[in-house]
C-alpha cells in the first residue's frame, strides 16, 4: 500500500469514527434514562479518532521527509535538496497540509476536553463533544472532497517544485502551527458554549470547565503572532514587524476576543454574572477564526501570505461559516434569558468590562479595515487597500485611556471599590511624565500623541511595579501572572512607541571601498565574498559601521542568496542587536554593475518588543500552571 492510499484510508476512517461519535452522542442524549456517567464508548471512540487522525498527519509528514513526489502536495511544495527541517515544515506550509493539521488540533482538543472535564455534568460534556464533532465532520468532509493532501500525481515527477525561499526560515516554520493551536483550539470552547446552552450548564462551573482552554489557545495565539512578526522582521527584509496585512489581521481578531474572554471569565467565576456575554465571546472567537480562514484561503483578499487560491474552497468555507453562525445564533437566542447586571460603577467588574469594550472596539476597527476592500470591490468595482494610517489613527489614541485603566483596574475591589490613594496616582503620573521628558530629551522630539502613549505606558509599568513592591511588602498573596502580563504589555507599547518615533532609515548606493557618512554614522563597504550554503550560493558583503558619538564599531554582513533549485534571489538582512538598538542593513546589486544599493536602518528597542511579547505570554503560562495545581 502506498502512502496516498494509506493516508486516504486514515482520513476516511476518521470521517467514519466522527460520524459514529455524532450518532452515539445523539443516541445517548435521546435515551429516556437519566445519564449519570459519561459513556465509556464515547471516550474510547474519541481516543481512537485521535490516534487515527494523528496517524494520517504523520503519513503526510513522512511523505514530505522521504520526498514522495507521487503526492501532489509534496510535489508542489518540496524538493529533495531542501534541508530536512524545511521538508518537515513543508507539511503545514500549504493549504492541504494545514487543513489536516487544523482537523488534528480539533480532534486532539476534543479528546483532551472530554478527559479533563470529569467534574462537569455529563449531559454538558456529551453536547460539547457532539458540537465539536459536527464541526470536525464539516472540515473533514471539506478536506476529503476538496483539499485532499493525499491526491496523487501521475506520472510521478522526479523532482519537486520547491518551497519559496522566503518561507525557509525557522520562525516561519514554527509560527503557523502555533497559530493553528491558538485559533483552531478555540473551537473547543465554541462547542462547549453550545453544550452549555443546550444542557443549561451555567455559571461558575461552566467558567471552570473552559478557562484552561481559553488560556491555552490565548498563549499559543500570542506566541504565534510574536513569531510571525519576528519572521517578518528578520526575513522579509522590509525592516518592519507589523504591516496590517489581512492575514496578520485574521490572527489578531480572534486574539482580541480571546483576551476579552478570559477577562470576562474572571467576572463569571467570581460574581456568577455575564454568562451570556461569555457565551457570545466563546462563539465569536471560533467564528472569527473561520472567517479569517475564509478571507485568506478563498483569495478574495490579497496578502503576502498567498495560498494557491481556489474559489470553490472559498464557497465551501463560506457555506460552512454561514451554517455555523446561523445555527449557533438560533441556539443562543432560544436559550437566552435576560440577566440582571447590578455593577457598581467603581468596581473591579466595571474595570474588567472596560477591557472588553476596548477589545471589541479594536476588533471592530480591524474587522472593518480588513473587509472594507471587499465591499468597495463588489459594490463600486473599486480596488483599494486599507493601510497603516487607518489603523494607527483609530487604534493609537484609544490606547491611552486603555493603558491607564489597565494600570488602575487590577487594584480595584470586587463589588464596590473606593479610591483612597489619589496621591499615589498623581505621583506615579508625575514620574511617568518626567521619564517621558527624559526620553524625548535623549532621543529627540515627538508628536503630542506619541508623548501621551509613552506617558501612559510608563504609567502602566510604574503603577504595576509599585503595586508589586507593595504586595510583596505586605506579604499578601498576589496574582503574579497578571502582573507579568500587564508589565509586558506596558513595555511592549513603550518599546513600539520609541521604536516608531526614533527609527532612522537611509537608502544609498555604494561600491566596494566607498564610504558614506550621515547623522551620527559612517558606513564603509569593505569587501565582497562568495559563499556556498546547503541549497544556495551567496554573495556576502562586509560593512563597517562607525557610530561617531560613542566611537563604537560594528561589522555587518548582508547577503544576496541565489537558490539552486528555483534560481530565485533573496536579500538577507544583516542585523546587529544590542539592548537599546538594532542596526539593520540589506544590500542589492544594481544591474550587475559594481554599484550596490544599501538600505540602512537604526531601530531602537527592537529586542524589547520581542521580550515584552514573550513576557505577556509568560503571564498566561504561569496562570495556566497555577490552575493546574
Amino acid at each position: 500500500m502506498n502512502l496516498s492510499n494509506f493516508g486516504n484510508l486514515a482520513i476516511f476512517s476518521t470521517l467514519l469514527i466522527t460520524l459514529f461519535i455524532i450518532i452515539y452522542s445523539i443516541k445517548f442524549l435521546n435515551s429516556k434514562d437519566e445519564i449519570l456517567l459519561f459513556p465509556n464508548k464515547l471516550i474510547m471512540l474519541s481516543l481512537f479518532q485521535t490516534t487515527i487522525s494523528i496517524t494520517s498527519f504523520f503519513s503526510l509528514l513522512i511523505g514530505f521527509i522521504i520526498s514522495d513526489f507521487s503526492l501532489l502536495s509534496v510535489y508542489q511544495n518540496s524538493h529533495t535538496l531542501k534541508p530536512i527541517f524545511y521538508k518537515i515544515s513543508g507539511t503545514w506550509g500549504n493549504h492541504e497540509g494545514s487543513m489536516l493539521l487544523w482537523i488534528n488540533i480539533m480532534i486532539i482538543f476534543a479528546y483532551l476536553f472530554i478527559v479533563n472535564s470529569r467534574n462537569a455534568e455529563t449531559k454538558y460534556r456529551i453536547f460539547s463533544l457532539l458540537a465539536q464533532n459536527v464541526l470536525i465532520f464539516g472540515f473533514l468532509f471539506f478536506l476529503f472532497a476538496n483539499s485532499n493532501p493525499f491526491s496523487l500525481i501521475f506520472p510521478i515527477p522526479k523532482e519537486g517544485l520547491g518551497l519559496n525561499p522566503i518561507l525557509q526560515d525557522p520562525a516561519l516554520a514554527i509560527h503557523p502551527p502555533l497559530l493553528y493551536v491558538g485559533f483552531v483550539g478555540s473551537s473547543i470552547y465554541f462547542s462547549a458554549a453550545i453544550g452549555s446552552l443546550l444542557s443549561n450548564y451555567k455559571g461558575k462551573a461552566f467558567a471552570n470547565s473552559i478557562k484552561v482552554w481559553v488560556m491555552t489557545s490565548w498563549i499559543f495565539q500570542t506566541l504565534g503572532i510574536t513569531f510571525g512578526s519576528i519572521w517578518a522582521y528578520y526575513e522579509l527584509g522590509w525592516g518592519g514587524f507589523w504591516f496590517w496585512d489581512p492575514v496578520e489581521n485574521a490572527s489578531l481578531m480572534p486574539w482580541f476576543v480571546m483576551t476579552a474572554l478570559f477577562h470576562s471569565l474572571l467576572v463569571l467565576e467570581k460574581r456568577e454574572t455575564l454568562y451570556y456575554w461569555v457565551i457570545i465571546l466563546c462563539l465569536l472567537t471560533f467564528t472569527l477564526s473561520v472567517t479569517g480562514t475564509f478571507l485568506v484561503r478563498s483569495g478574495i483578499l490579497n496578502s503576502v501570505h498567498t495560498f494557491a487560491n481556489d474559489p470553490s474552497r472559498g464557497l465551501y468555507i463560506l457555506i460552512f461559516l454561514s451554517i455555523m453562525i446561523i445555527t449557533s445564533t438560533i441556539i443562543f437566542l432560544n436559550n437566552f434569558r435576560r440577566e440582571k447586571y447590578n455593577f457598581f460603577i467603581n468596581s473591579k467588574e466595571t474595570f474588567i468590562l472596560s477591557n472588553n469594550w476596548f477589545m471589541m472596539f479594536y476588533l471592530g476597527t480591524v474587522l472593518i479595515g480588513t473587509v472594507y476592500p471587499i465591499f468597495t470591490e463588489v459594490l463600486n468595482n473599486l480596488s483599494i487597500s486599507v493601510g497603516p494610517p487607518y489603523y494607527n489613527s483609530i487604534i493609537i489614541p484609544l490606547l491611552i485611556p486603555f493603558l491607564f485603566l489597565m494600570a488602575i483596574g487590577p487594584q480595584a475591589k470586587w463589588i464596590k471599590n473606593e479610591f483612597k490613594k489619589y496621591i499615589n496616582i498623581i505621583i506615579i503620573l508625575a514620574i511617568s511624565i518626567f521619564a517621558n521628558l527624559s526620553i524625548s530629551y535623549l532621543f529627540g522630539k515627538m508628536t503630542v500623541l506619541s508623548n501621551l502613549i509613552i506617558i501612559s505606558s510608563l504609567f502602566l509599568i510604574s503603577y504595576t511595579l509599585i503595586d508589586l513592591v507593595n504586595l510583596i511588602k505586605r506579604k499578601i498573596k498576589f496574582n503574579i501572572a497578571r502582573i507579568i502580563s500587564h508589565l509586558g504589555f506596558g513595555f511592549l507599547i513603550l518599546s513600539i512607541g520609541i521604536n516608531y518615533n526614533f527609527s532612522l532609515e537611509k537608502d544609498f548606493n555604494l561600491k566596494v571601498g566607498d564610504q558614506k557618512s550621515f547623522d551620527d554614522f559612517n558606513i564603509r563597504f569593505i569587501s565582497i565574498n562568495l559563499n556556498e550554503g546547503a541549497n544556495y550560493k551567496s554573495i556576502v558583503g562586509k560593512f563597517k559601521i562607525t557610530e561617531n558619538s560613542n566611537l563604537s564599531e560594528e561589522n555587518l554582513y548582508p547577503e544576496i542568496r541565489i537558490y539552486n533549485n528555483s534560481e530565485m534571489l533573496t536579500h538577507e538582512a544583516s542585523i546587529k542587536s544590542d539592548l537599546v538598538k538594532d542596526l539593520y542593513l540589506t544590500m542589492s546589486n544594481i544591474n550587475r554593475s559594481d554599484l550596490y544599493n544599501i538600505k540602512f536602518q537604526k531601530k531602537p528597542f527592537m529586542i524589547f518588543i520581542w521580550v515584552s511579547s514573550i513576557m505577556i505570554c509568560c503571564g498566561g503560562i504561569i496562570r495556566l500552571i497555577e490552575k493546574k495545581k
Partner: protein
Amino acid sequence: MSKKIGKYLLLALFFFILTIFFLALKNDPRYISNDLIGKKIQNFKFKKLNGNNENLSHNDINKTTLINFWASWCYPCRLEHKYLIKLKQNTNVKIIGINYKDDQENAQSFLQEFLNPYDLIGVDNDGVESVKFGIFGIPETFIVNGDKIILKKFIGPLNQKNYQEIINIINK
C-alpha cells in the same frame, strides 16, 4: 417592538455581508476575464523595463500582438518560455511582456538565460496595474489584434496546443 426591529436589522446585516462575500467569490477575475474577449484595450499603461520613465501604452499595440504576463520567480513561466521563443522565431507577431511583481535583477538574468522573446517589456512592481487590466495570476497571455481588440486569453503556461491555436489566429 424595537427589539424585534433590532433583530431583523441584524439579520439583514448578516445576509448583506454574506451576499457581498458570495459576490466577492464570484468576482474572481478568472471567472469574469472571459468578458474581456472582444473588448478593446483601454487602460494599458506600464512603465518600461530599464526605460527612463518611459511608458508602454495601448498605442504600442498596432498590429497583432501577444501580451504575456510573467515573472522570474514563476515556475510555470519557465515552462512556457520556449513557446514564446518559437513564436518569435517563426512568426512576425509582436510580443509584449509584462514583468509582474518581480525583482528587476532577477528578471534580467531570467531573460539572459532563457533568451528574450519580447519586443517590448513593461514592469508592474506592485501588481496593481495588471490586476486592473484583468489578470489574476501569472502566467497569462492575451492575443490582441491591430484594432486593440482582445481575441483570446490563455490562463496558465502556454503549451503545444495553445501554440498551434496562436499560430492559427495569426495566420487568419
